[in-house]
């Protein structure tokens, strides 16, 4: 308990520090947010143009597709906002020998890396995600119940942890190879599959994004539950289970990696 309290206090200090840094570079952070908003905007334009040519995408309406897309941005944006610093580990922190600094401090390395930075650019994704959900939700005629609302909110942190876990596991590879940023990148590209209804893919792709690199649980399956109310056990239950498994694997790889780590020197 005492330790958790200490960690929370640390987190506050890091966040405060981060805000000071942001105020120093105000321009950057506005440009960053606009950049992410713009990226999502063009994707929406793409969907809109496509749907102007066809009545529905294999049975999915534009609104449903946009809703799934919007939902996918929430866990992605949250992970991006809170734990973006993990990207840096695989890209350059280890390679440049800067990782040593984490080892000299009396806090858990993984915790320290995760909370050190706050990536405000991610607000671009979060704003867009919330906006897309708010725009599409009223006209989707979804049946709401107390349980459904509860599950819909509950599933978001778990979906976020799927991202975080995969990021921890792939960045930790850098402890052996010095550089693993592009492995993380490769996994993130798989995540693009999950933004759209998985029924448009063939069985191979569908199995991969469900069972091997389970990004489908960050977006499509939870969103599908909200849309249809079907299979809460699979759509929500499995999301929770998978996110816990992925996080465990991530932490295990990280801890082994720390033991294997040899500084890159300078």
């Amino acid at each position, binding site marked *: 308990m005492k330790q958790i309290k200490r960690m929370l206090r640390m987190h506050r200090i890091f966040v405060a520090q981060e805000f000071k840094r942001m105020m120093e570079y105000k321009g950057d952070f506005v440009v960053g947010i606009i950049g992410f908003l713009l990226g999502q905007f063009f994707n929406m334009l793409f969907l809109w143009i496509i749907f102007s*040519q066809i009545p529905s995408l294999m049975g999915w309406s534009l609104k449903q597709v946009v809703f799934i897309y919007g939902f996918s941005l929430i866990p992605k944006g949250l992970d991006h906002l809170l734990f973006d610093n993990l990207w840096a580990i695989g890209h350059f922190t280890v390679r440049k020998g800067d990782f040593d600094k984490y080892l000299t401090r009396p806090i858990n390395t993984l915790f320290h890396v995760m909370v050190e930075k706050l990536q405000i650019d991610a607000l671009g994704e979060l704003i867009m995600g919330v906006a897309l959900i708010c725009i599409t939700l009223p006209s989707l005629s979804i049946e709401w119940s107390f349980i459904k609302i509860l599950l819909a909110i509950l599933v978001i942190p778990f979906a976020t942890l799927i991202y975080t876990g995969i990021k921890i596991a792939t960045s930790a590879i850098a402890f052996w190879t010095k550089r693993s940023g592009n492995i993380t990148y490769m996994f993130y590209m798989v995540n693009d599959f999950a933004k759209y209804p998985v029924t448009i893919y063939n069985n191979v792709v569908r199995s991969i994004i469900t069972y091997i690199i389970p990004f489908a649980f960050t977006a499509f399956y939870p969103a599908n539950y909200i849309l249809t109310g079907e299979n809460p056990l699979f759509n929500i239950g499995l999301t929770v289970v998978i996110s816990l498994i992925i996080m465990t694997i991530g932490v295990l790889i990280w801890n082994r990696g720390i033991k294997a780590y040899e500084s890159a020197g300078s």
Partner: protein
Amino acid sequence: MKKKLRIYLPFVNAGMQETTTYRANWIFFMIGNVLACFVSYFIWKAVFLSGDSNSMNGFTMPQMVVYIFLMFLTSTLISSGGTYDIGEEIRDGSISMRIIKPISYNSTFLFQELGNKFMTICILIVPMVIGVEVVRTVLIGSVQFNIFGFLLYILSCVFAYLINFFFNICFGFVAFIIKYLWGANMMKNCIVGFLSGATIPLAFLPDTLEQIFLLLPFASLNYTPVMIYMGMYSGLFLLYYLGLQMFWALFFWGLSKLLWRVSLKHLSVQGG
């Protein structure tokens, strides 16, 4: 000429070594990008299955497949990291090392990147082109490959690369003034991605918009080479689009020279 070559050859070499050192990293990056192609492939497949005609805005499904993968090949071939490199060098101050040397600032980047690119071309272009051609032959039922078209495609890619290179240099010089580039670079990539047809073929846009976009330099980047490869442009049109590419390459070359003069006055190395 010979002397010039001797000066810049080490930069080509350095670029090649850079890529070979982090081979594995590069391969993962490429796999990631190919995966993104497959996402588009499945979306378009679903789109064509959901529509009621075989062709959409002049594209059939086999053509769309060729378009998606050629778009990827072309953007990889013509990619240029000038923006980011200049931004980084300004931030860490190492730009001063380039400035004090009696060689052209732009050329050092160009030659270093050509070294980088050499590896990409060797590893990527042959399997990609063979892959695209096999798919095309199977889907359409007859051999579509045309060596003349392919050579024109390469020529068009060279122009496209030059446009991209000088455009990115111009954009990079903005760093001299705003000093931070990551967000701006992302914005640029989104806009260029859309205007150059990487997100969706320009033929899918409303007519007037398509005509305007075709005139802009961005269509000259990816869209023109891909259209040439696919045999969508012929005769006078072909000459017109190649000419347009040439014009934009010269335009950005000139602009980069001008910006170099202006921004040198603004340079303040942070912590250099």
